[in-house]
């Protein structure tokens, strides 16, 4: 049932609205009639309890980290510590207006400044700005800085950003938003960038390359130094998509690999909640040469107090990506997380995320599954391909994904990266225990048996969720995006 279907005209929740004497609405008769709305919007008129009950019941229809194992590759679904939520939501912090003069907001600014410093340490970059509101906006900021760099040198023939074929969709989409063409570079059979193809593609038109390392294929790009050299020699810059930073915390730093700019997904590596789709935070870090272009605002410290750096102090900045300093509440959560882990804890994240992934890969191999890159180490994630099963048993990666839901596991990422057929990108994260990994592995093995025994049942799954498989084609063809009373 939809919340609107609980609605009854004239129902009010007086506790939640400002009360005028005699219960009247405040006087607005000074406003000209012509600018007023003729009828109030038809929002649900429900009681507070109906609201609470409806949304509490709805919430129970979700899978989530707090209720299920969620081995969603590339997404780093790890435990979101409750302390991060509680202490980022202290009334004193929530009450702060974004335009409060820095002098009266030192407590919050201290946190931001320290977070910037920690991110510099982790990435090996020279300066960090926290303002991008998610990974994709971080990418935008990064490529915009690459563009600003070339522009400042009047190097205006550069028109292309190189992107490996395994890249996340945001990479090419970002290149285009920044006015570049995205040119794909193929992957070799071991999961590394095809260097010959790269050399062939590079030229004076190359503005830069966007890379994830470890890549979205779940392997570490071993030839990164060579790639950096090729690009830099051609006058291009290197962009690091930090979605997979979890794998290398304290092990290797993008700055040392030769990257000029990086974004970090704090909602992945720094465990801020995904919230059913956001908000995230995508701070960017830059090497020396991109420092002037860093997006504003960010926080500076002169040894005595903290201040906000804006366009005024940084005339060459690519500018502002949002009205203020991005998703500050998310930044506070990431800050708290970083303080709880400390330096050693950060390194252990990489250790155990990698251990878990390699363990699962080994065990799943033993259970008869094929890996996309069986000769490679898994990083914090790895890819399994169900090509054989699709061919022999007629079940797809999608079918097995849906069947996993019946077992109480969220499905891994499916069909991404596109170059691996029928693939599962599996990322267990460091916060899951061996027990949970084993349970998932057993479920996979059991489903494989089911595919042999009763493929139709698997193809008809899920069987135990609030809905069965949904008609996506109908959803797109007979668009129903807004509820109407009559329907």
């Amino acid at each position, binding site marked *: 049932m*939809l919340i609107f279907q609980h609605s009854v005209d004239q129902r009010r*929740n007086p506790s939640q*609205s*400002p009360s005028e004497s005699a219960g009247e*609405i405040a006087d607005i008769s000074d*406003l000209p009639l012509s*600018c007023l*709305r*003729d009828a*109030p919007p038809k*929002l649900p*008129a429900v009681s507070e309890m109906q*609201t609470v009950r409806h949304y*509490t019941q709805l919430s*129970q229809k*979700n*899978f989530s980290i707090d209720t299920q194992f969620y081995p969603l590759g590339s997404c780093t679904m790890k435990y979101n510590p409750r*302390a991060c939520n509680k202490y980022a*939501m202290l009334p004193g*912090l929530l*009450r702060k*207006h*974004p335009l409060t003069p820095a002098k*009266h*907001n030192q*407590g919050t600014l201290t946190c931001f400044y320290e977070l910037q410093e*920690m991110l*510099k340490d982790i990435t090996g970059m020279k300066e960090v700005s926290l303002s991008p*509101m998610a*990974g*994709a906006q971080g990418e935008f900021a990064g490529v915009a800085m690459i563009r600003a760099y070339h522009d400042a040198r009047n190097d205006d023939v550069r028109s292309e950003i190189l992107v490996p074929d395994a890249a*996340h969709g945001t990479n090419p989409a970002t290149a285009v*938003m920044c006015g570049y*063409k995205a040119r794909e570079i193929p992957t070799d059979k071991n999961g590394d960038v095809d260097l010959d193809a790269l050399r062939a593609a590079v030229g004076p038109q190359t503005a830069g390359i966007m890379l994830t390392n470890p890549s979205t294929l779940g392997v570490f790009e071993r030839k990164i*130094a060579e790639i950096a050299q090729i690009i830099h020699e051609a006058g291009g810059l290197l962009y690091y998509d930090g979605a997979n930073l979890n794998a290398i915390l304290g*092990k290797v*730093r993008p700055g*040392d690999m030769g990257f000029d700019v990086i974004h970090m997904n704090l*909602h992945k590596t720094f465990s801020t909640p995904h*919230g*059913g*789709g956001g908000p995230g935070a995508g701070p960017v870090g830059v090497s020396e040469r991109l420092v002037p272009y860093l*997006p504003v605002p960010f926080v500076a410290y002169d040894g005595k107090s903290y201040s906000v750096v804006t366009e005024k102090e940084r005339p060459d900045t690519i500018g502002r*990506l*949002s009205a*203020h300093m991005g*998703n500050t509440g998310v930044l506070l959560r990431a800050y708290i997380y970083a303080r709880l*882990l400390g330096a050693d804890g950060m390194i252990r994240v990489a250790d*155990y995320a990698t*251990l878990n992934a390699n*363990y699962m890969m080994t065990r799943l191999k033993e259970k008869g599954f094929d890996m996309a890159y069986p000769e490679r*180490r898994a990083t914090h994630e790895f890819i399994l391909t169900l090509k054989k099963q699709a061919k022999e048993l007629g079940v797809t990666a999608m079918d097995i994904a*849906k069947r996993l839901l019946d077992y109480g596991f*969220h499905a891994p990422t499916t069909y991404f990266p596109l170059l691996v057929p029928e693939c599962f990108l599996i990322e267990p994260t460091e916060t899951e225990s*061996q027990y949970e990994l084993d349970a998932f592995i057993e479920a996979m093995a059991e489903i494989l048996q089911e595919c042999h025994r009763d493929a139709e049942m698997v193809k008809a799954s899920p069987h135990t969720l609030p*809905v069965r498989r949904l*008609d996506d084609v109908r959803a*797109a063809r007979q*668009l129903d*995006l807004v509820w109407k009373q009559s329907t």
Partner: protein
Amino acid sequence: MPFIPHTETETKAMLDAIGVDSIEQLFDEIPSELRVDKLSKMPAALSEMEVARLMSERAEQDAHLQCFIGAGSYEHHIPAAVWEITTRGEFYSAYTPYQAEASQGTLQLLYEYQTMMAEIMAMDVSNASLYDGGSALAEAVLMAVRSQRKKTTKRILMPRAVNPNYRRTVRSIVSSQNIELIELDYDKKSGRIIIDDDMANDVSALIIPQPNFFGVIEDVDTLTDWAHENNMLVIGVVNPIAMQLLKAPGQWGSNGADIVCGEGQPLGAPLSSGGPYFGFMCCNQKFVRQMPGRIIGRTVDVEGKQGFSLTLQAREQHIRRSKATSNICTNQGLMVTAATIHMSLLGADGLARVAASCHKNTVTLVSQATQISGVSAAFNGPCFHESVLYLNRPAAEVLEELTEHGILGGYDLSQDYPELSNAIVVCVTETKTEADIIAYSTAMQSVMHDLPIASNDQ
């Protein structure tokens, strides 16, 4: 180990299963010359107890100032239920609802949100959120340009009366795409946008803020019709609380706005130093395939039962890659969860009362403040929610002195409008009492006339 469950025994067993001796060995594909082995500037771990104390100190470190700033972020009452439900693990720690069957809670909620927003804006459809008001306006500009493919140039009329930080954001985001942003000035008496037929040629869209950054209510009907007559699209950038009382964008002029966007913060998001908030966007049905961001559709499952899923994904980067309508991926889902619950708790009646109360409070403050010699109202038109005051002294000084009375007295316009160097924009929401408003005028009185600070102004 914080948040890592492994015991030594388990780690050993797992390493044995893999067939390596140490965790270190799992990193052997990383070229050794690149390896580091420590983080040198990260501090050591704190316990949760230590962090709790640290954060409590930081939160209380700054004075408790009464806030009379709006300028895009508004202090509204948020029912306790909003965040108690929003932070339930099942909403808080879920991923984007790609696996629809395991995400019906989030998906249905988003569908309800889309319905509410479309209803408030009187538009056909809504997406499931963008980052914030500023970046939503940038996306609206890009969308308008995409939808006006017949135009030979990419020109947008962007009034100076639009929030300056939104204008900056738009500029940063659209600048690489050869889009020309043309500024429209405001009338110095009324504070309203001045339109100019000379600028109307081959323009893709006109941006109309309602109310505008000065709190002034624009003549949206005239602006909309003028734009449509000149083959521009109309992009409304509106305050959702104001829309409870003011004419909805879908009803502006003869045909309504084409795209509507804005800052969702007033619907359940705390001020929180500027984020996370969320950007909303609605449009006419015919532009839906140009819309950026996620959209949820209602459909049925194999048994014919109602269900919800992400739809029109072919617009998005994970399917369309370089041809996507935007690069946006992660959006502001949890803020929308809060907004949906917030709207459901207040209802149209409650939201209208909030809007009316803000209006009344602002009118009251303005009429009190303008009694003070040296303080006058800047514009003569009706306003909503906030208003510009002229001072006979530099705004920055006055504001700093007001903080000594425990008051954040408004936003200094001189930073963005050099011609308004002695002006501030003030905002009085429903959270302020009569006593608060009097405290403001009293403080303003003593600041403007150099009276001693009263013993306890708060």
